[in-house]
């Protein structure tokens, strides 16, 4: 492995909450030295001038949908890996909501093998909590952990039977497994394509009250209290769910929460005249909700920002809004979209990378996400200010369903390193 010296970088340290000019030495895939005084290159050491740009721990993205097995025409490990590298994502934590669902050690081993052959970035799979994501019988949590599953989730399927969910939580708890759930009251949100309110009423769209999220979260918190499980809420997107989350954390439950980049940067009005690229699950919320969620990331109440990358082909989006598929691709737009919060003055860069890199690593027990000697050299070099106009056809993802098409954005990945090796370098 190449020895590398990255010098003259503005190093973002999310753990310390600082940005300092520093040089970074990399050996054997690990960061070995972070020095604020300039280091000189040793012989046989490859020296890289960072031109005073930002260097941060690579993004660890929990909840990426790669459509293998089942729908490789939407996204393969190869295309997702290239997109992730170009987006500064060094670890993809993949979702099991494929066809078939990843609910057995055999399928998990298959996709883990596929993933590591085809992608330049780290891929860590999650597995389904219940067989077929049907919410009836728990999957083989122990075997799946042995096979490498880092967390258990039925994704957007809510395990609606509390008895089944409680048992899965306590079983997972005994094994120390992390359970990731989608807080939502499913009977209320069934069929909804928008958040209820003036906008949905005017557009005549079937809508769900924001309260459905709080109800789902309240139930989950009660079951976590009952079982002692390690629990992560995949997406908290409404103001009304936040006090419940805050109380649960204050009570010492092992709970963390995430949110999606789309809920942080877009609101329901972006749907405008039924633009289906803005149809996500849960639906986009009001501006008040968006602001509350941004504030929760700022305060640390919400721990993790994810892309919730969900590739959909043109056919499944070119339908009337109600019938169109949900989800948006976001591996390549996660960073520039997140930087909107920085440019708007909502979040400092260390806060942002706390939610993008440090916290997800910590929650999953990964060594990455830090800027310290001994941590894996999974790094992201970027220009936070470079402006560009998004053109969805330039995306490396096979599916081009981004809501940011034609949006003016700022922020460009200059290089992505995984274990010290460049997996993406921008052509200048």
């Amino acid at each position, binding site marked *: 492995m190449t020895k590398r010296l990255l010098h003259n970088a503005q190093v973002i340290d999310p753990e310390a909450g600082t940005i300092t000019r520093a040089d970074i030495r990399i050996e054997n895939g690990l960061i070995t030295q972070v020095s604020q005084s300039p280091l000189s290159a040793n012989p046989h050491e490859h020296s890289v001038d960072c031109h005073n740009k930002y260097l941060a721990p690579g993004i660890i993205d929990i909840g990426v949908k790669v459509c293998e097995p089942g729908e490789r025409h939407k996204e393969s490990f190869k295309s997702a890996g290239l997109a992730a590298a170009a987006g500064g994502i060094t670890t993809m934590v993949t979702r099991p909501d494929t066809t078939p669902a990843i609910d057995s050690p055999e399928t998990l081993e298959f996709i883990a093998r596929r993933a590591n052959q085809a992608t330049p970035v780290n891929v860590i799979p999650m597995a389904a909590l219940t067989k077929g994501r049907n919410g009836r019988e728990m999957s083989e949590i122990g075997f799946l952990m042995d096979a490498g599953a880092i967390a258990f989730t039925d994704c957007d399927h809510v395990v609606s039977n509390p008895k089944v969910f409680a048992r899965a939580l306590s079983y997972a708890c005994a094994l120390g497994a992390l359970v990731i759930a989608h807080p939502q009251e499913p009977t209320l949100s069934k069929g909804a394509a928008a958040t209820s309110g003036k906008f949905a009423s005017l557009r*005549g769209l079937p809508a769900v009250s924001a309260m459905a999220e709080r109800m789902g979260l309240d139930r989950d918190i009660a079951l976590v209290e009952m079982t002692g499980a390690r629990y992560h809420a995949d997406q908290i997107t409404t103001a009304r769910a936040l006090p419940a989350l805050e109380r649960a954390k204050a009570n010492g439950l092992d709970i963390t929460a995430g949110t999606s980049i789309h809920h942080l940067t877009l609101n329901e009005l972006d749907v405008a005249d039924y633009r289906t690229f803005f149809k996500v699950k849960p639906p986009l919320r009001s501006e008040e909700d968006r602001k509350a969620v941004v504030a929760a990331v700022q305060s640390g109440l919400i721990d993790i920002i994810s892309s919730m990358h969900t590739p959909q082909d043109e056919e499944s989006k070119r339908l009337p809004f109600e019938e169109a598929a949900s989800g948006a691709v976001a591996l390549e737009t996660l960073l520039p979209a997140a930087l909107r919060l920085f440019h708007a003055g909502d979040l400092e860069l260390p806060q942002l990378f706390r939610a993008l890199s440090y916290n997800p690593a910590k929650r999953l027990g990964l060594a990455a996400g830090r800027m310290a000697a001994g941590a894996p050299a999974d790094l992201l070099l970027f220009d936070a200010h470079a402006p560009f106009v998004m053109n969805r056809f330039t995306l490396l993802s096979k599916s081009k369903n981004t809501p940011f098409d034609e949006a003016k954005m700022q922020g460009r990945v200059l290089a992505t390193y995984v274990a010290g090796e460049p997996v993406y370098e921008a052509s200048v």
Partner: protein
Amino acid sequence: MSFTDKHLLGIEPLRPEAITEILDLADKYVALNRGPLKHSDVLAGLTQINMFFENSTRTQASFELAGKRLGADVMNMAMQASSIKKGETLIDTALTLNAMHPDILVVRHPHSGAVDLLAQKVNCTVLNAGDGQHEHPTQALLDGLTIRRAKGRLHRLNIAICGDIAHSRVARSNIILLGKMENRIRLIGPPTLMPAGIAELGCEVYQDMHVGLQDVDVVMMLRLQKERMDGGFIPSEREYYHRYGLDSEKLQYAKDDAIVMHPGPMNRGVEIDGEIADDINRSVIQEQVEMGVAVRMAAMDLLARNLRDAPASGEVTA
């Protein structure tokens, strides 16, 4: 010329002057329709296709008659029976239609926004004949014309819209149109049938007919769909009729000269008492049907003029 749009997809994008222009022309077509020779040739040589993805007798007949009286070649396609059952998408349907070179497409679809989507993909002029729970613009225009002719004006009136507002595209288009024309709008119905956030549109919301109907000039009743009647949204048909059905007792709270409207088809004894519906001194329900033909003639006439004035349309994007 105030109405210069290529399509009529909803009331929302229309300016008040455009609404007035359509209604003024519709008045002339009312006269034509009442005369001995009910024919004009302003749409001669144009092809009108009525594409109904949802059952309709009255609206479809009204559009067909309007087109024929203006000299268009009219074709009806009952879509719920044919291609969508075979899995054809709306976009495929649009491309197929483009190949037939229609000039005017009249579309009804069960999903909100579907007509907008279709309009983006076809070359011709599109008229929304009702999309999901979104808009039904020609219904609001015909209601506006009916009110204007009965009351002598379409502004500064107290208008009550009663019943199932939540599921009604007729209500949405009327709320927007009557609001644009500066009327006071009251919505009356049980909370389960009231859309969320609707008061933010500047409407007053009432749950009690006796209070809501106080001194109104116009009482607009809405149809209650059968599938909403049993337990889900209201306890029963008879309780609904008791609390929200328009009868002479409730109507006496309105002004003495208040008119009664209904977009049809009516459920007599559910949302409206049969006697009120047939009372020629109060009910303008038959006039609404008559105005429907005239308003659709006016809208298609104006759209055809815009079509002729517009430069040749460019490439179709699929």
